[in-house]
């Protein structure tokens, strides 16, 4: 299936010719206009949402609607943070996302390395198994997965969300792809110098895989932060809820409290946006064509 391909950075499409001719000017204006129209279309839903969250509850539905809040307030945020146990949901989500991410990066790096650098028949069989998991998403084995969680005593535990999410085909593919570009000579040289297999991996291979580790870490954090269906089946006790479940419980209420909902939602988006802005280049380096989502 979608086996990731690492490609050499390609040449730019066209040499950057100076935009001089009239036809080019027309093209520049029209292409830029279309792009910025789309920027407005794409940006507007979120912008409207965020601006609305600063409106006092009474102004949310009062006509005429205005783009900018007339009396900006953070009351919705305060209420969201204090009521609904929101701080706890936030912490729970943080714990789940961070611990899963750390474990996923370690497990995927080890598996990917083994699949790239050793050639045993059972490793090849395991690779096929990993491929098969992409055809068997959580949604398909929802109820039996729940029973497994229950039988393992993980029901209603945060560990019940963390442990099953550690294995990810995408992560294994990314590392396998990366490590197969690392020359075998490096491994051979380490062996001749008397380095054990495990210390070679920890001391030589892991450090050079840092960009991949970061990329997978960001992906994994995003997947776990935004995950809904696993927490939904594993968690029952409101004190263990994650943000997504907590927010859905506000949406599912008979009368939606939009003021709280807007605040809570914006708070839940902020961490990911911050991470993205800091590590943008690791996300956008789409040369890692791991065409898989989790």
């Amino acid at each position, binding site marked *: 299936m979608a086996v990731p391909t690492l490609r050499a950075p*390609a*040449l*730019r*499409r066209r040499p950057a010719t100076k*935009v001089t001719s009239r036809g*080019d000017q027309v*093209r*520049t204006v*029209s292409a*830029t206009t279309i*792009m910025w129209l*789309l920027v407005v279309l794409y940006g507007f*839903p979120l912008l*409207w*949402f965020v601006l609305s969250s600063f409106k006092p509850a009474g102004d949310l539905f009062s*006509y*005429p609607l205005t783009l900018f809040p007339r009396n900006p307030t953070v009351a919705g945020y305060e209420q969201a943070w204090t009521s609904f146990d929101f701080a706890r949901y936030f912490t729970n989500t943080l714990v789940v996302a961070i611990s899963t991410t750390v474990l996923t990066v370690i*497990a*995927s790096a*080890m*598996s990917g390395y*083994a699949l790239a650098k*050793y*050639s*045993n028949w059972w*490793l090849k069989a*395991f690779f096929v198994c990993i491929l098969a*998991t992409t*055809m068997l998403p959580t*949604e*398909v*084995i*929802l*109820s*039996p997965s729940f*029973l*497994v969680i229950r039988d393992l005593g993980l029901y209603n535990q945060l560990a019940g969300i963390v442990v099953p999410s*550690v*294995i990810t085909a995408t992560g*294994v593919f990314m590392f396998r792809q990366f490590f197969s570009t690392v020359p075998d000579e490096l491994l051979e040289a380490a062996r*001749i110098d*008397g*380095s*054990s*297999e*495990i*210390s070679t991996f*920890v001391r030589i291979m892991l450090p050079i895989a840092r960009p991949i580790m970061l990329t997978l870490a960001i992906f994994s954090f995003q997947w776990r*932060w*935004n995950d*809904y*269906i696993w927490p939904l089946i594993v968690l029952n006790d409101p004190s263990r809820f994650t943000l*997504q479940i907590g*927010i859905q419980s506000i*949406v*599912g209420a008979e009368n939606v409290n*939009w003021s709280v909902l807007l605040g809570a*939602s914006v708070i839940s988006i902020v961490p990911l946006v911050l991470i*993205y802005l800091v590590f943008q280049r690791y996300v956008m380096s789409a*040369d890692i064509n791991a065409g898989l989502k989790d």
Partner: protein
Amino acid sequence: MANSVLDPGPPQDGAAAAGAPATASGRTPDLRRQRRRAARYQLAPLLFVAVNVVLFAVFFVWPAATGLWYSFTSYTGVGRAPFVGLENYERLLGDSAFYAALVRTLLFTVLTVPLSYLLSLGLAVLLVSPYTKGKPVARVVFFVPWLISPILVGVIWRWIVGENFGLVNYVVTSLGGDAIAWQSNADLSLVVVAVAAAWSGTAFSMLLFIAAIKNVPASYYEAAAIDGASPWQRFRYITLPGIAPTSFIVVLLSTLGSMKEYALFVALNNGGPGTENNLIVQYIFTTGFQRGQIGYASAASFVLMLILMAIALVQLSVNRRREA
């Protein structure tokens, strides 16, 4: 994993401290070097994959096997699981709610996949075009929806298209129109979810397309320019064939993703109005968890899996034939 395992062992000879089995030393030296190397390292790779092997067995093989078994029983989650043979599957064939969910899911997929394909390809083309200004900002704006969870995408769009309070209907009524039934009309409601899904789903495909477009050899464009090809011809006859493998992956992934959509519907309209927009995963969830019919839900799950596999195989074979 325990950290002690990762500590470097005492360096021995060339054979790995992590375990060179006796077989390596005992074999005749004329075996192919490759073979020897493969046989020499068993324990180290086993340690490396151990965690994922265990997780695979516990969280994929176990549930898949029990799920398949339960689909032939009338298990309810507690007590015994009485074997009923193919009864669940027979019942599914006559279950109108199941068909409705299936048809709705297919309709949603047919709406969403082309929309997000066109949008992500269009955005990618604009973002690599030499004619657009302000690309860094535009790229961030296009990409931000990827960060937002399906639940929140649902909430954001619900806020915009809410029938009594949404901005869209406010604008429509201020312009003298009648409020549009974005949520009480099942078809409009589905369209809204499809738009929201496309909005949130384009970013990732867009990244794949950007990488693919940049990888099309520049010499093709130069040759086309000499032959006087128009921008559209260059796009149609150079770019599109050049990015065909990526197009295939994008279409496949977004098809599979749309077939499994659940969270977005829950947040946007809760599968409503009524149960009209209950997609297949929601159907499975309701049957299995709210009604406790785990056996029956498992049967529905396996039908879904077969459909997903069929879609993947069909797309794969179409792709093969086109390449041939």
